[in-house]
């Protein structure tokens, strides 16, 4: 059997997700027995446009990048968005709340006009996406599971319940009880509540679940004496694009 050909591409992002792929270490060598990598600019000189699966990291943040994305869609049978920037717009969408001309001036001063940009958006805002590996950064195990499903011709399963479910199972002390604001109640699970396990809060990097329970969220706010503004402020970190769409 011919090995499926895979390619990696990156747009506006930190390349931390492709690093997670490199960080598979020995597991990566095993994966290379099953697939043929034909393009991965970060680690190889060779490049081919003949591939079956395209993994895309990063957000689309300028019109000129749309053509490149459309070409990838044409070449690939399966497109997989990896990492928050690609799946939900990620931290990049934080600037969508600001006047983008002002944003450019803040960073580039009088040269602002040389730097095109538009609202940062996930890959599926430009081209259809077949599968998602959420998270900032992606989890290596989850990446492997998604790849395995795709190789078996199955649709990868992604949880559609909040991080709280995993967090309770892990017997963490609720962040709200500790006096902190946490977006776990509306964020898609699948990370095994890793940030709360490490003693902090859920920041929302896996994005909103499909039907967030707004009433439950309001109850939490009332119970802990928090305001809607507290919630909106925290939602802005990762939910910028999703909230704008809602």
């Amino acid at each position: 059997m011919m090995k499926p050909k895979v390619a990696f591409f990156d747009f506006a992002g930190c390349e931390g997700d492709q690093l997670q792929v490199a960080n598979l270490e020995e597991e990566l060598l095993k994966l290379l027995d099953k697939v043929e990598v034909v393009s991965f600019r970060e680690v190889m000189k060779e490049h081919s446009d003949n591939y079956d699966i395209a993994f895309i990291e990063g957000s689309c943040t300028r019109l000129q990048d749309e053509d490149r994305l459309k070409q990838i869609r044409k070449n690939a049978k399966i497109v997989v968005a990896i990492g928050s920037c690609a799946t939900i717009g990620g931290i990049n969408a934080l600037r969508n709340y600001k006047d983008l001309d002002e944003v450019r001036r803040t960073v580039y001063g009088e040269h602002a006009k040389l730097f095109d940009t538009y609202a940062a958006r996930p890959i599926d805002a430009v081209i259809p996406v077949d599968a998602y590996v959420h998270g900032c950064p992606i989890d290596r195990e989850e990446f492997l599971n998604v790849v395995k499903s795709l190789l078996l011709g199955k649709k990868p399963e992604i949880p559609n319940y909040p991080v709280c479910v995993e967090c309770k199972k892990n017997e963490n002390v609720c962040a709200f009880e500790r006096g902190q604001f946490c977006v776990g109640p509306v964020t898609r699970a699948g990370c095994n509540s890793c940030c709360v396990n490490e003693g902090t809060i859920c920041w929302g990097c896996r994005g909103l679940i499909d039907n967030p329970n707004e009433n439950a969220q309001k109850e939490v706010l009332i119970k802990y004496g928090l305001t809607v503004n507290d919630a909106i402020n925290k939602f802005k970190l990762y939910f910028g694009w999703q909230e704008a769409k809602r």
Partner: protein
Amino acid sequence: MKDKNLNIEVHHVTRVEGHGNIYVNVKEGRIERCEWNISEAPRFFEAMVVGRYWNELHHITSRICGICSIGHTLASLKTTEEAMGIKVSEQDVKLRKLALHAENMQSHLLHLGFLVLPDLMGVGSVIPLASSNPEELKTVLRLHRLANEMSNMLCGRTTHPQRLIPGGFSKIPTMKELDTMRKRLREAVTDVQTVAELFNKLVGGFPDFTRETEFIALTKPDEYALYDGKLASTDTGTAPVAEYLTYANEYIVPNSTAKWSKHSRESYMVGALARFNINHEKLSPLAKKTAENFGLKAVCHNPFMNNIAQLVEVVHSIEDSIRLINELEADGLKSQPEYYKPDVKVKAGRGVGAVEVPRGILFHDYTYNDKGVCTKANCVIPTNQNHGNIQLDMNALLPKILGRPEKEIELKLEMLVRAYDPCISCSTHAVKVYFT
């Protein structure tokens, strides 16, 4: 040479982090164009953090770079801590230094093993090495995994660390975990020597090229400075970090919109070679020995030797991590409550923080109002400081190798860029270069 015509266009140099291009035009032996060009999509972090709270900035700015997210997080925390006068315990500073070592090792090994080694072995990527040199490759992978597991133990995970927070850590490792890591670090000494021997056989593949330049790094009297120190230049001596703007002078090149940095000359270099040139006397014993084995001596002006300086630093990070764990043990590791959140009195102020990250000195500079909301931010990234030096090296290298075949010229120029280990997506100051 009169009949030499070249048209080299490396659109998106491979095996570097981010998007950069090389353009060379030579007509009848005359160099008409020789450019290092950046085409990364700008990301505007300095604008994004304005309006955000003090306890969120490290989380946001960590996302500037996936490869050196621990370094960005630490630079960010130090900046916030300085702005608000937040104290960090001696124990936490030691744990943070260990985290920096872990990331330094991870990043250097990734660069040396995945990005540089293929050039020296005459292949396009690390993939064929899995069958041609399995043992060597497995040794590199083993070391890389060790560095990652060390980050996990200290920070929660390798990329975008969770436990590093203003004032300390939300969770710290146990002495047992540190002890296990120390054992593995001791064992890793043999592995790193194997890697050093491999590079020693191949080091002749780097061009013998020098161009005098200025080197800038942090320095400290009693240690090889990574976490803190004063600013030091091989040209002008030392200065407080608060004066960073007079060092990292960003300027506009005539006929181009590139922001480059200069200090006492047209350009300067930051990174492992700069640190080695300034602080080599404070390296660990085995690291010094490794430098000697490669004939690496300060002040070395061959940018290709940055690769070897990185290897020397990997050895140093292993030895110095063992030393730090010994100290933590001797002092008695103090535990802390679960979900620890240091008590912070929010106040208005400005802070400047500098940390040596794998690719060189990194500066963050924030101003906060009395609510702890960021009103202004500036981040100066190592790779941006190196762009000018890469271009000037390229200008100097090209005439020297013009007689060689085109493919070789292209490879040497790519190798020059790779030697700097540029991290282009770090570019909060993403620059687009328009040459006319």
